[in-house]
């Protein structure tokens, strides 16, 4: 069995940033394990621009953004294994992995960072009725086929779900010669970024139908038509509102789910709202020495935030490797209420946390001219007005360690959405 101080599962944006920061924090023995044939993760197929405004103050494509972190990993000589699948992680941080060259092997790590990313919700999970022909793709699968392999999955396209990948693929398919007929969205608001609706749909005259869903898929071998219908407030189709679109392709962009199989096998407790691990301020899970960051922790809107979060996970894992756990630290829970769906982290340790701690979350609906309010117990601490908040975009609150020091008997922190 091999030994490493730190094993990072996943060589996408989260894993790369975590590795770089852990090395910069003094950890020499690091191994990144990546299942694909190259580092970079899903960024390699995200060829649109708009990545890195926060991190590099310029707009990069996904592969360009990835290449900067890959270069940082290379400069530091951090070890990685490609084409290698992690099969299991035990709660005592034994990592079982497999590839062609080494076969199946075990690594004992002092700390593990989970950075496996997320996957797309499938047609089956959505339980859309109809036939099961070829031509139904998750938007990400279509994105890989078009952008990495140069193959077109279809000519006439209907898209269900207005998540960012769906919006981006509407434009990609259009530019590469396909006709995107409509984007249907179950919710009364889009799940994607506003800028993507402008640049990916409005620019090309592609209609977005909110409060609509797919009620039938026709075609025995290949998709021949898709029927969408309006849904009521209960999100059930309203009879008589059906519209049939002939098409050969249905793309699904209906949400992302953290890739949580390995988290589960390690005994990590998951948050049912995010489907990712429950973590504290240092991004450590309930299993000592196992940390999580990026989309496996909670699905992010911007890769810049993934990089920031992952860098923190790398630093914290380094801290743990060098100094061990502080198991006796006092914890304070963060309660998400009134429109705040969850928070990452779920709790903080006021004495141990960073001086400034970013708490990220998403809201459960569209809020106009509302405020994000932070309470220490019942006392209002901060209130920030936001013109628009929507579930497609992450929000944040920054907690100040010094300020928390003034509340030694604090029981809970509450974050809520309030009328402005």
């Amino acid at each position: 069995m091999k030994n490493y101080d730190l094993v990072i599962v996943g060589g996408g944006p989260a894993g790369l940033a975590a590795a770089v920061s852990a090395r910069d924090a003094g950890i020499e023995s690091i191994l990144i394990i990546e299942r694909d044939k190259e580092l970079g993760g899903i960024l390699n197929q995200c060829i649109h621009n708009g990545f890195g405004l926060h991190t590099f103050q310029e707009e990069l494509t996904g592969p360009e953004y990835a290449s900067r972190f890959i270069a940082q990993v290379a400069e530091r000589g951090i070890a990685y294994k490609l084409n290698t699948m992690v099969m299991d992680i035990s709660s005592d941080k034994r990592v079982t992995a497999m590839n062609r060259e080494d076969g199946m092997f075990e690594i004992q790590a002092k700390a593990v960072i989970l950075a496996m990313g997320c996957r797309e919700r499938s047609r089956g999970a959505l339980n859309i009725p109809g036939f099961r022909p070829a031509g139904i793709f998750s938007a990400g699968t279509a994105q890989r086929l078009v952008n990495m392999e140069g193959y077109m999955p279809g000519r006439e396209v209907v898209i269900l779900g207005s998540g960012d990948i769906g919006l981006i693929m509407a434009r990609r398919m259009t530019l590469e010669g396909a006709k995107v007929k409509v984007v249907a969205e179950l919710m009364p608001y889009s799940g994607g970024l506003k800028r993507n609706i402008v640049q990916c749909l409005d620019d090309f005259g592609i209609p977005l139908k909110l409060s609509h869903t797919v009620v039938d898929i026709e075609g025995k071998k290949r998709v021949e038509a898709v029927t969408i219908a309006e849904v009521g407030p209960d999100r059930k189709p309203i009879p008589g509102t059906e519209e049939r679109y002939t098409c050969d392709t249905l793309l699904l962009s209906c949400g992302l789910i953290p890739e949580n199989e390995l988290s589960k096998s390690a005994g990590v407790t998951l948050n049912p709202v995010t489907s990712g691990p429950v973590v504290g301020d240092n991004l450590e899970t309930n299993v000592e020495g196992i940390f999580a960051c990026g989309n496996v922790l909670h699905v992010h809107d911007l890769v810049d935030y993934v990089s920031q979060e992952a860098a923190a996970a790398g630093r914290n894992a380094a801290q743990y490797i060098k100094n061990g756990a502080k198991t006796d630290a006092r914890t304070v829970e963060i309660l998400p209420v009134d429109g705040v769906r969850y928070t990452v982290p779920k709790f903080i340790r006021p004495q141990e946390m960073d001086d400034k701690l970013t708490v990220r979350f998403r809201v459960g609906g569209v809020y106009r001219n509302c405020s994000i309010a932070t309470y220490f117990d019942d006392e209002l601490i901060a209130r920030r007005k936001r013109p628009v908040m929507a579930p497609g975009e992450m929000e944040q609150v920054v907690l100040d360690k010094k300020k928390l020091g003034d509340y030694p008997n604090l029981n809970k922190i509450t974050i809520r959405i309030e009328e402005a």
Partner: protein
Amino acid sequence: MYDVAIIGAGVVGSAIARELSKYQASICVIEREEDVCSGTSKANSAIIHAGFDAACGSLKARLNVRGNAMMDQLAKDLDIPFQRNGSLVVCTKEQDPAGLETLLEKGKKNGVPDLRIIERGELLSMEPNISDDAVCALYAPTGGIVCPFHMTMAFAENAYTNGVSFFLNTCVESIAKTADGYALRTVHTDTKEAETFEAKIVVNAAGVYADTFNNMVSSHKLHITARKGEYCLLDKDAGTHVSHTIFQLPSKMGKGVLVTPTVHGNLLVGPTAVDVEDKESLNTTQDGLDSLTATASRSVKNVPMRQVITSFAGLRAHEDSDDFVIGEAADARGFINAAGIESPGLSSAPAIGEMVAEIVTQLLPLTEKSDFVSTRKGILRPETLSMEERNRLIREQPAYGNIICRCEMITEGEIIDAIRRPLGARSLDGVKRRTRAGMGRCQAGFCSPRTMEILEREASMSIYDITKNGVGGAIVIGTNKEI
């Protein structure tokens, strides 16, 4: 001129082919779809019934009980995933428990072993998630679960190994009587080329279309109704919600639905039962899927329907006589029906194979082979090996070290095996049914581009000829900017 031509490579046609391949005879199987196991055999409850349900004295009763008894040996010989998990017919408090007594008596008469009625206490200890309304149940320990794909493929591959010819993508258009048998005019579904097969004996195992073929040669008309059954398949996380196959005691509300673990560790809920006009209507419906959720809760509580990973529909071939129709058509010598094979067809298939082989050998004296290969190895599952064995395998064949399907942890080695073996996979569904690659919770989102690459290489296929499930079902249709 073939001795025997079998129409249909479902579980029935394949079981018959395997039985007949024990004899020195030239045999062909003609299948319209691109793969074996592409009709009713691929979309059903995946159950080996105990045999208490069918009417006493019916073919269904006799062949089910016989088929069930044959499964242990067959599973061993042909490497079929099969497990006797036992079945329960649950009676709830608003139902008359006398219904269970009737089933018990029928089962005893049919020859089902070890049947007994259990009370709530025992039921609850066997199935903690049983409905709060369940008062008692009929317990059949011989009930089992099977992989219907592997069962069909095992029969077909073994028949192939023993010399049976399979013609896939070949659709029988018409059947004409000839001097010494029948001429089957076929069309290739892809090339549209016509070909005529001559055979002394024809076996009609054409599922929902068996009436069409019978009616081409016999004046004793059959009439088969396609009875649609919709199912939901749940994530492996839900696979232990029940451990037995849970049936519901039929009531005025209908036959109910079953909730069962599958041999692969998923949970299966279904089927609905709706007669449909179109024998190709394998679509699921909103009403059907909704009704499953409601009906399942009658026998099992808290079925985690949020963990559905896919839904599907299958068509049962219901003949008007309400029993299997097996035997030579009275006015068409040498034309043997295996028609109306609805539930318990999968359970009965091994016995149907025996029965039809016996009828054939009575009509056509055949000599048994001395070199019949009675066993077949399934696709090697590396997960069943120790780490040492697995590493030895990877050193010899590195493809076994390369995971392609991350949900089911299926390796490239298994996919290559599925493609290269007899009657190997040529489509994504073919790979999926043989290896489970793409059958997990992401439903092929991750592995399909990778599987396509392997198919392209191993089967020397053009990327544009790689389909989900045969002719007309291409995955990609052109290159960027060129469609």
